[in-house]
């Protein structure tokens, strides 16, 4: 699900996802908590990692400082 609009703003689904990854989480857990299909969560996380808004390691994802700032200013 696209997370960042052409003007750089976060979509509502991206905001919901960023709020959920305050602590390292697996895509499966995120999908279950958001009620979204796993394939969409994987694609969203890939986009957010590419934008440096989320960090990833060992199959877990968490919000970056940049992501936190973006979320607060949204």
């Amino acid at each position: 699900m696209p997370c960042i609009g052409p003007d750089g703003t976060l979509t509502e689904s991206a905001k919901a996802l960023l709020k959920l990854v305050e602590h390292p989480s697996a895509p499966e857990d995120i999908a279950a908590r958001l009620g979204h299909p796993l394939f969409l969560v994987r694609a969203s996380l890939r986009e957010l990692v590419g934008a440096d808004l989320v960090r990833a390691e060992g199959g877990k994802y968490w919000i970056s400082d940049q992501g936190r700032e973006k979320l607060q200013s949204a």
Partner: protein
Amino acid sequence: MTEQVQQTPSLPRLGSPAPQFEAVTTHGTLKLEDFKGSWLVMFSHPADFTPVCTTEFVAFAKIHPKLRELNCELMGLSIDSVYSHIAWMRNIEEKLGQKITFPVIADLDRQVATLYGMVMPGESKTETSRCVFIIDDKQILRAMIYYPLTTGRNMDEILRVIQALQTSDKHGVATPANWHPGDKVIVPPAKTQEMAEQRMTDKTVECKDWYFCMKELK
């Protein structure tokens, strides 16, 4: 004299890994690998804003919840832009009252259509035919169904094939013609003479002969 070599892409084969791709869709950029762990019905349609395709999209959307119950996702494809897809999805919802809940690939560069052999030049050089690819949770291509441009697909058959494949995987059996969930299944034929003799005395299966035995699933 220059020799021209025409490269024909090798088409996907049943039982082989489904060709991987990354594509722009109505749900953002998706990779096939994003669907790992779920089954996937990937289908192509000739073009947006055409009548047979519209009936199919409504029908696919109606079976989407049932597919989800089978741990199966759904994704469409045509050689149209994502803007055309979005406009058509909104038109279907407005005019026919059906929300389209699955992603649709905008395959303008024909990357996925070529990879999967979805264009049938004998029918149309510019449109994808009505192809259905059933990919399992390990991303193995398990079934392919092709329909011509004129003929809308049968959703019950697509559901039935997925249910049959999942039943075969779970129970190590095959399914007979016109099988539906709840019907008797086919026990794989005996492979040795000893096994054939044992099969004929096996009280848990119903045999017409040693090679043709059926049973009920419990």
